[in-house]
C-alpha cells in the first residue's frame, strides 16, 4: 500500500470518528455517562501518550506527570477566570492579584509552555540520574510543585490550597478529541522522525547510542520537555473537564494510574496507550459501577456487592493483566491502516495456502 493512500485512509477514519461523535452528541442527552468517559478518556490518552514518549520510547523512567498536569491546569485556571468572578473565587485573598483573563486556547498553550519550562529547569540536574533514581526524583519534584501551589503566601495567585473554579470550559466532547488528536498526532510525527529513532536508540542502549554520535543529554532533554508540554496541555483539558481544580488532586497516585494505563496499553505503543486509557476510564468510571450497589435478583441478595467492590475487581483485573499479559494490549505494535491492510492481505494469502488461521 502506498504511503499516500495510507495517510488518506487514516485521515478519513479520523474524520468518520468525529462525525460519529458529532451524531452521538446530537442524539444522546448531553449528560450521558458516555461523554464523561469519552472526555476523560481523551485527556488520559493524551497524557498517557506523553508519558509513553518518555517511558516507552526514550527509556526515561519518569514519574512526574501529575506535577506537570498540575502546572497546566493551574495556568489555565488562573489565566481564564473571568475578572467578575475573581472576588468569589479568591474569597480569602480579596480577589487575587491577577485581574485579567485571556482566551482559553491561549491559556491552554500557556499551560503547556509553563510545564515545558519547568521540565527544562528540572531536567538540567535530574536527567543525569539513572532509572529508579530518576523516577523517584521526578516523583519528588511533582510533590514539591504541589506543595508550592498549596502555599498560602502565593494565595493571591494560586488561591492557596483552595479550589479554583468558574473558569470557562468547552462542553463538547469534539473539542477534547480535537486537541487530543492534534497533540497525539504531533507526538506520533516526532516519534517517526529522526528524533524518534534517536530516542529509541537511547532506550535500547545508552552507551551504544552515544557511540553512534547521538547527543544523550540533548535528546533526553527534548523528550522530557516535549512530554511535559503535552502533560501540561492535558492538565488544562482536565481542568475544563472537571470544571474546578485543586492542588490536592494531583497526587502521585494519579501518576501511578497513568503509568498503569501506559503499561496495560503496551509500553512503546501510541495506539495502545490510547485504547487502554479509554478502557481504563470506562471500566473504572462506568462499566464496573454496578458492583458498588447492593443488588437483588428477585429476593436473592447478591453477595459481596457493596461500596468499594468495584475497585477490588478492578485491581484484580489489573493484576491479571500485569502478570499474564505482560506485553499489554498492543505490545510495541501499532494499530494502523497499514497494519490492518497487511493483516487482511496476509490472511488471504494464508487461506490460499491451506486455511491456517492467523492468531
Amino acid at each position: 500500500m502506498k504511503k499516500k493512500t495510507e495517510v488518506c485512509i487514516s485521515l478519513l477514519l479520523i474524520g468518520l470518528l468525529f462525525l460519529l461523535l458529532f451524531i452521538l452528541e446530537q442524539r444522546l442527552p448531553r449528560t450521558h455517562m458516555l461523554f464523561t468517559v469519552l472526555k476523560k478518556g481523551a485527556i488520559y490518552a493524551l497524557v498517557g501518550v506523553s508519558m509513553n514518549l518518555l517511558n516507552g520510547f526514550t527509556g526515561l523512567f519518569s514519574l512526574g506527570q501529575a506535577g506537570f498536569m498540575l502546572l497546566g491546569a493551574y495556568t489555565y485556571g488562573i489565566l481564564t477566570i473571568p475578572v467578575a468572578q475573581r472576588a468569589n473565587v479568591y474569597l480569602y485573598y480579596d480577589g487575587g492579584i491577577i485581574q485579567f483573563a485571556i482566551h482559553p486556547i491561549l491559556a491552554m498553550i500557556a499551560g503547556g509552555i509553563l510545564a515545558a519550562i519547568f521540565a527544562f529547569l528540572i531536567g538540567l540536574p535530574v536527567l543525569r540520574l539513572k532509572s529508579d533514581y530518576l523516577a523517584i526524583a521526578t516523583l519528588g519534584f511533582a510533590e514539591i510543585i504541589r506543595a508550592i501551589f498549596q502555599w498560602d503566601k502565593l494565595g493571591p495567585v494560586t488561591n492557596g490550597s483552595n479550589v479554583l473554579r468558574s473558569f470557562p470550559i468547552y462542553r463538547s466532547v469534539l473539542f477534547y478529541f480535537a486537541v487530543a488528536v492534534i497533540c497525539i498526532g504531533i507526538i506520533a510525527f516526532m516519534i517517526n522522525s529522526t528524533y524518534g529513532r534517536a530516542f529509541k536508540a537511547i532506550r535500547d542502549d545508552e552507551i551504544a547510542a552515544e557511540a553512534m554520535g547521538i547527543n544523550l543529554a540533548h535528546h533526553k532533554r527534548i523528550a522530557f520537555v516535549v512530554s511535559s508540554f503535552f502533560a501540561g496541555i492535558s492538565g488544562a483539558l482536565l481542568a475544563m473537564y472537571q470544571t474546578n481544580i485543586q492542588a490536592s488532586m494531583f497526587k502521585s497516585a494519579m501518576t501511578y494510574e497513568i503509568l498503569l494505563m501506559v503499561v496495560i496499553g503496551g509500553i512503546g505503543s501510541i495506539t495502545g496507550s490510547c485504547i487502554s486509557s479509554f478502557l481504563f476510564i470506562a471500566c473504572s468510571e462506568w462499566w464496573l459501577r454496578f458492583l458498588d450497589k447492593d443488588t437483588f435478583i428477585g429476593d436473592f441478595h447478591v453477595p459481596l456487592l457493596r461500596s468499594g467492590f468495584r475497585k477490588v475487581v478492578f485491581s484484580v483485573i489489573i493484576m491479571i493483566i500485569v502478570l499474564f499479559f505482560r506485553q499489554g494490549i498492543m505490545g510495541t505494535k501499532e494499530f494502523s491502516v497499514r497494519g490492518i491492510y497487511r493483516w487482511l492481505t496476509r490472511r488471504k494469502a494464508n487461506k490460499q495456502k491451506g486455511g491456517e488461521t492467523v492468531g
Partner: protein
Amino acid sequence: MKKRIFSVMMSAALAIGMLASATTMAATVKIGVFEPASGDNGAGGKQETLGIQYANSIAPTVEIGGETYDVVLDIVDNESSNDKGPTAAAQLVGDGVSVVLGSYGSGVSIAASDIFREAGIPAIGVTCTNPQVTLGNTHYFRICFLDPFQGSVLASFASENFGAKKAYVLTKLGDDYSAGLGFYFTKAFQALGGEVVSETFLEGNMDFASYITTAKNEGCEVFFAPTSTEAAALIINQADAQGLTIPLLAGDTWDSNVILNAAAGKNVQIYVTTFYQEGGNPEFDEGVKEFINSTSVNLANNGGDDTVAAVTAMGYDAYFTALEALKAAGSTDAAAVNEALWGTTYEGVSGHIEFDQENGDAVRDAAFVKMANTETAAWDFVAQQTTADID
C-alpha cells in the same frame, strides 16, 4: 490465544455494563443523595444519609400534580474527595434525578456544583457550611447556617466563656470547609481583640504531636480545630497523651459519636457548635433511634450506637424540604423544582427552613453549643447562640 481470552473478557465486561445500565421504573421520582460513605468524611456522610433514609421510610411517596409518585433515593458515594466527587455527581445526573441532597463536607459540594448546574438540576446542601457553595449560583440551596456565622459564634464563645486572648487554629490544607471556618473564626476572634496562631496540616497526616507542642509553646488558651472526624480522633488522642489542658473547640463536623468515643475516659474538654441538640424534638429522636436500631447495617452506619447526630436531623429536614419543593413545582422536572425551591418553606425538627432570595441560603440565626462529657460519652448542652448574642 492470550489475546483472545483478553478480548472475551473485555466484551464480557462490556455486556455486563450494558445490562446493569438498563433498569427502568414507572411513576417514580428520583432524589439524588450525594454523600460521602468513605474517606475523611465517610462517618458523617453516613449519618446524614441515615436521616434522609429515615425520612424516606416515613414518607415513601409524594403527591405531585395530583399523581402519587414513589420516591426513590439514588445514593452515590462521593468518597469525600474533590476529584472523585464530580464523577459521582455525573452518575446522579445520568440517572436523571430531579433534585440532589448533600453533601456533608463543603469541598465536594463546591467541586460538583457545576456538574449539577450544567444539567440544570437543583441541589440542597444539608450541612455544607462554606459560603462558596451557594455564592454566585442559582441552583445550589442550603438548609444550614454558614461559616461566617459559625466562626463568629465560636470566636465569641471562646473569648466570653474562657476569656481567651490567644487562640490556636489548626486547619487542613486543601479542605474548603476547614480553611473557610478557620478563616472566619480568625477574622471574628481578631475583631474581638484576640491573637491567633494558625497552622495547617497536610492530607494524610497522622502525626499531630508537633502541632500540640506548638499550641502549648505559644501559650494559646483555646485550640480551634475545624477538621474532619478522622483527624479529630487523632487530635483528641494526641492532646490527651501530651496533657493538653486548654479547651478544644470545633465546628459542626465534630458533633459526632466518633468524637464522643475518642474522648471517652480522656482528660480533654471539647466544645462544638451544631445544628440540633438531641432532645430538641423527642418524637423525632425516638423514631430515628428505632430506625437506627432496626438493622445492623443502620447501626453500623451510625457508628455503632444510637446517638442522634445533628447531621441526621438535618438530612431528615432536607428530605422533606425537597418533597415540599416537588409538591410546589407540580412536576418532577428539575428546572421546575429549582424554580419552586426559592419559595419553599418547611418547619423542620432543626427549626424553620426558608431560603433567602440572594444565594438560596437558609435564613437561620441560631446555633447550639455542646460539650463532650467524657464520663457518660454523651453531649451536654451548653448554650444556644443567636446573631444577637454575637453582637
